[in-house]
């Protein structure tokens, strides 16, 4: 049966019912099927001067792949995406399309933008299910590049370099490749075995070697890679670093986690599954502090582990840094948002466990340097929320392992690695960097964009050296 398309609106995407999905870790969004994807593709105006492409950090030829979807040529669509992106099934799921490609879509001026992200996801899933593999036909360059970190940035850089004919080895500190895609983003947004692993395998199929369990900056350093191990260039995509805490009393109490720890236990170590050994706190009442995407992931994970979950954020809903879709999903699932509120103390019971959190109400004052109105405490408004788990999701500060062991690598005031935006070049010859290690915590797609730019920068460097 043909799907009726209202050109002003996206073809709706099927999702698990909120009440059902709040109790499982299966993927929330079910994605388009063939008919839905083809119907949605008809909404694309195939603009000559496609603004969506300019909005994409890796410049996917969006109108071309959507036209192929409309014609039912899904393999061709996947090849078009593959020219620009190594991780389409990931990006189709976790990119903030509303502020990138879809944010630029002409359809969005009067109605809803074309559902570019869901179409990308459909194409990538179709390609995987139909065994479409990336093709490599580059001539070998006979030069070796080391990539540090197997997250989105490292995988993209490695994939692009391999396509150009370089001999690429990725070094990953953890036991599994994927970086934030495996330890950070939960299964219900990004299935690990179904989506992440096949995309990692696709990068390997391009000839990229991945060595897990190797921490660069400890023992093996960037300098030893360049001198002893014969690499001609290094790309640092080591990601964000140590979690920030608030510095309020009680933060050492048992039951206080960083979002990174909570999510790593659950996602990488699969603590939610009975057949894995790693424990996790299944709180009854959990308070998540922070309003970013990571906070939403932590909150929705805690909810699925059986808790009543409150998100405490010091500004108002308009300032929530999380994607609108994530906030919407979280609300649907029953997460309670305590906005314009800020913790001042974590309360402990006699055994040192969290028993509650003291909160002060806030109001918005004058705009600060970020342009957002600065939250100010409302005097005398403190109150207590009873809870047994607190998850701090306040961002991260850069990991010192690489910067402290690499001579001549410049870092900035925030301790992020300084790198050229267009080439990824650092202050040290033959060393390039990108992703969260350079920008501080940002998004998967921006990290991929940086990996892509650096692959180009490295190719130019190695072509002349």
């Amino acid at each position: 049966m043909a799907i009726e398309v209202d050109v002003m609106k996206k073809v709706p995407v099927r999702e698990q019912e909120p009440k059902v999905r709040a109790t499982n870790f299966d993927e929330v969004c079910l994605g388009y099927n063939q008919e839905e994807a083809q119907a949605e593709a008809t909404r694309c105006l195939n603009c000559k001067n496609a603004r969506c492409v300019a909005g994409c950090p890796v410049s996917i030829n969006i109108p071309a792949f959507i036209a192929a979807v409309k014609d039912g040529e899904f393999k061709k669509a996947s090849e078009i995406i593959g020219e620009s992106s190594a991780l389409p099934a990931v990006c189709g799921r976790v990119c903030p399309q509303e502020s990138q490609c879809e944010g630029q879509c002409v359809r969005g001026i009067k109605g809803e933008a074309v559902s570019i992200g869901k179409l990308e996801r459909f194409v990538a899933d179709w390609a995987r299910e139909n065994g479409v593999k990336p093709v490599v036909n580059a001539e070998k360059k006979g030069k070796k590049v080391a990539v540090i970190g197997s997250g989105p940035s490292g995988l993209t850089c490695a994939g692009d370099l391999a396509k150009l004919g370089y001999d690429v080895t990725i070094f990953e500190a953890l036991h599994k490749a994927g970086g934030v895609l495996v330890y950070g983003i939960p299964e219900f947004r990004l299935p690990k075995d179904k989506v992440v692993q096949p995309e990692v395998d696709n990068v390997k199929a391009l000839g990229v070697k991945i060595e897990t369990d190797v921490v660069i900056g400890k023992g093996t350093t960037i300098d030893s890679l360049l001198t002893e191990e014969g690499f001609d260039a290094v790309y640092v995509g080591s990601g964000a670093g140590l979690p920030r805490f608030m510095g309020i009393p009680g933060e050492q109490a048992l039951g206080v986690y960083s979002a990174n720890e909570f999510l790593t236990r659950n996602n990488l170590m699969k603590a939610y599954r009975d057949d894995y050994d790693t424990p996790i706190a299944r709180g009854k009442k959990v308070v998540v502090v922070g309003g970013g995407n990571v906070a939403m992931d932590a909150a929705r994970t805690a909810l699925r582990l059986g808790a009543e979950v409150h998100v405490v954020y010091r500004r108002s809903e308009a300032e929530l840094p999380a994607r609108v879709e994530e906030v919407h999903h979280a609300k649907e699932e029953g997460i309670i948002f305590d906005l314009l509120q800020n913790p001042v103390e974590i309360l402990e019971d006699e055994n040192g466990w969290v028993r509650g959190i003291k909160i002060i109400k806030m109001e918005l004052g004058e705009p600060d340097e970020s342009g957002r109105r600065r939250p100010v405490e409302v005097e005398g408004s403190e109150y207590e929320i009873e809870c047994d788990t607190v998850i701090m999701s306040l961002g991260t500060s850069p990991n010192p392992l690489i910067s402290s062991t690499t001579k001549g690598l410049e870092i900035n005031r925030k301790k992020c690695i300084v790198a050229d935006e267009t080439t990824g070049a650092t202050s040290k010859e033959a060393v390039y960097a990108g992703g969260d290690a350079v920008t501080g915590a940002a998004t998967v797609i921006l990290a991929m964009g940086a990996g892509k730019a650096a692959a180009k920068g490295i190719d130019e460097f190695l072509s002349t050296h």
Partner: protein
Amino acid sequence: MFKILKAEMLCENICQQIVEAPRIAHSCLPGQFVIVRADETSERIPLTISDYDREKGTVTITLQIIGASSMKIAQYKTGDSFADIVGPLGKPSELCTDPIEEVRKKRVLFVGGGLGTAPVYPQVKWCKENGVEFDVVIGTKCKDTLIMEKEFEDVAGEHYFLTTDDGSYKHKGMVTSVMDELIAEGRHYDLCVAIGPMIMMKFAAKTSLAAGIPTIVSMNPIMVDGTGMCGACRLVVGDEVKFACVDGPEFDASKVDFDSAMKRMALYKTEEGRAYLAAKEGDTHHGGCGHCS
């Protein structure tokens, strides 16, 4: 996969394994640790390196069986392989990274208790090989729980002082009583390195600091990734939050908040604590995870 070249029980509940890990063996130094994941479903367990052989490409790990996860690792015998071992992690002991001529001017007092005996060993061995003077005090519950006696006799000889809590072997008493005696004899120390159970480190440090000896302890908090990402291993050191995996594991004992660290550990260590955890953390807690030695 990382092959175990030799596995043996050193006493009833402490096992030692020599593991083939060339990258780690190539560069590790005393004071550093590794993380072991026995198989796909296992936890990541941090374990201090208790010896290494650069030529053979091996590292030695020593662990105490406390609960399910440490039991699982201990069941790996000679010829078996671990899924993962990653390292070296943490900062090396400052003894091994400070300028050697400065270090040679120092006399070091090493104190090891229980399982802490094992990580003290590579530091003692390093001092011996590099001509740094030292005494080493090892304490254990009783004769049956003593480990690595031969190794210490070989490297420390007459500078090796052994004590048992119950007096079943050699000196009777806690490590602090031997420390008191050595200090009272007029032996001079410029540095004390104490590694063992939190409570032992707290009191050993109290003794050495009272005698005016700068003291280093090795902290062993809960960890997940061990590379500076999860923040599980945070400690209060001198009113600052530090991460044992990247800032440690060795810290200036005069700045460590032992009581806060102990409170965190106690729950994982005692039966009562574990039962409490089981109630709090539900069926995902498996009772003792090797974090609590």
